[in-house]
């Protein structure tokens, strides 16, 4: 296929400075095509979050190449990399990271603010997205008055409001009960059907097994990748 990969990492190393330095990613190569939905699994401390952060340009690799839509991110300035995050990527985190001082709708609208979208359009699109995640009745609630499941759906709405090409979710259901987990995973499945490229870190083996592709990280390396039909033990 001539088309560039959606996300690609080639020989990526990420070391955290220290004595001794921690090699959180050790020569990782992975390619994710447009429209894929993958699960990233592996034991605690294996490097999953690091992988996702480097992939999503939140962190720069120590060496190796990270490219998005065929563009090497190393060639982009801080402003441009931020632009990539603002327009192309939606993040969902285990701890939600909602701002308690503002309503659900304004939290979601923050997902558009760094694209320079005007206030009215931000609010309109945020309201629509909140309806889409089933929170049309909670638009003006502050997150502090919401349940964990509702909060994560607000956070998902914030990640979706700018219609990103990529959604990167780091244990989005880690703090949720099974019912809320189901709701969030249904949203992710819906996005996948619409063609969004998604990577989800999860500890939940059932969730991982239900996704089309699983990438297993161990000790900073990709231990197995179902797309490659191979595994090393």
């Amino acid at each position: 296929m001539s088309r560039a990969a959606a996300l690609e990492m080639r020989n990526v190393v990420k070391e955290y400075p220290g004595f001794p330095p921690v090699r959180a990613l050790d020569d990782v190569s992975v390619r994710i095509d447009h429209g894929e939905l993958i699960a990233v699994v592996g034991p605690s401390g294996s490097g999953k979050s690091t992988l996702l952060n480097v992939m999503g340009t939140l962190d720069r690799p120590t060496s190796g190449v990270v490219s998005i839509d065929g563009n090497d991110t190393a060639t982009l300035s801080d402003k441009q990399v931020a632009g990539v995050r603002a327009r192309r990527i939606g993040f969902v985190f285990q701890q939600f990271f909602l701002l308690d001082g503002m309503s659900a709708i304004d939290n979601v609208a923050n997902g558009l603010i760094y694209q320079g979208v005007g206030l009215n359009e931000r609010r309109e699109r945020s309201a629509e997205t909140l309806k889409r995640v089933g929170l049309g009745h909670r638009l003006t609630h502050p997150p502090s008055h919401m349940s964990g499941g509702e909060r994560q759906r607000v956070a998902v709405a914030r990640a979706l409001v700018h219609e990103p090409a990529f959604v990167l979710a780091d244990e989005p259901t880690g703090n949720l009960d099974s019912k809320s987990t189901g709701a969030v995973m249904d949203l992710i499945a819906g996005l996948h059907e619409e063609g969004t490229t998604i990577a989800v870190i999860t500890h939940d083996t059932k969730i991982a097994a239900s996704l089309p592709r699983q990438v297993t990280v161990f000790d900073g390396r990709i231990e197995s990748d179902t797309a490659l039909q191979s595994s090393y033990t």
Partner: protein
Amino acid sequence: MTPVRQSPTLASRLRPSDVLRVGASGPRARKMRTALSALGVSIGIAAMVGVLGLSESSKSALLDEISALGTNLLTVESGVGIGGGDGSFPEEALAAINRIEAVEIASAIYDVDASVLKNEFVPNGQTRGLGVVAASQSLLDTLNGSIDEGSWLNNATSTYPAVVLGSVAAERLGISTLTQPTYVYIGEQYVEVVGTLEEFPLSADLDRSAIMGQPAAEEFFESDPAPATIFARVENGTIDANRALIPATADPENPEEITVSRPSDALEAQAAADDALTTLFLGLGAVALLVGGIGIANVMVIAVIERRGEIGLRRALGATRAHIRRQFLTEAVILSALGGAVGVALGIGATYLYSSLQGWRVIIPSTAAAGGFLAALFIGAAAGLYPAMRAARLAPTEALRA
């Protein structure tokens, strides 16, 4: 499949109106902390604006007083000198001074050995700080005094027991109107009050006196025939020459006993002293402002530490380092602007209140107010600079590891 509509190299962008909105979101979410950190700045600004406003108002009051008094009035007094004189003027001193060509008008007051009481039943000695003096008829004109009620001494009332009361004397003697014939008790007799005076500019002694004509004082009371004090109004531009000339003219035998002073000098000295005091308080206000600024810097450093998660999140949502820096800088300036606005309002309020209580013309210190507000903005920007740079330096992943 989501179409690739935008090039990934499109930079992230935060509208100016959103810089303000984002900067205000922190203070809005933490109202108590916002109020307390703005308070420090507002105290400093209020002190500075208030001090400047009060000093301007009081100075304008002093200038009014100086112009009412006139700068060409000289006061001539006689004291015991080393020359062995008796410390009093010769009787003809006033006439001599009046003969000086540059003296426009001169008059004298004379001590009268008597006290003024409301009536004969008040025990002698309870003078309430009031005194009795005799004066030449020209006194009122010489001092630019003015009549409150009734009339000043004339040829007739100067020669029989009648008095004009200074403003304080009238008040202490309980005389508020002269519609009925009114008397006070001086020496052993009742004396008619023919007039009351407005306050004299800078002559509090006369305000506390009952003033009678000099001929009447000599005839009916024990009065010193030699002047106690002589006032002379001289032609403008001849003040220094007259200062030198007057002592020898007034008392040719003991000129060194004579002192000539210029009452407006005292007011000008007071204005200068007020200036020094103003500078002192202004300095204190500046220190308060500085402390307020440090308070804001402190609060901002704490905010940056507490809100690492928010910083990381915003970076993940596409904020650049510059956007984060701008957000926290704006936040600091908002805090100080709030403090500045409240401080300016308090300072103007204090000026207004105190000036009106003092009876001064209220001068709203508009330059001080504008300057104070700008100073607050500047302090906020300075206080926010370091915390904002720290916030911007934070790596997104570090900030998100809450």
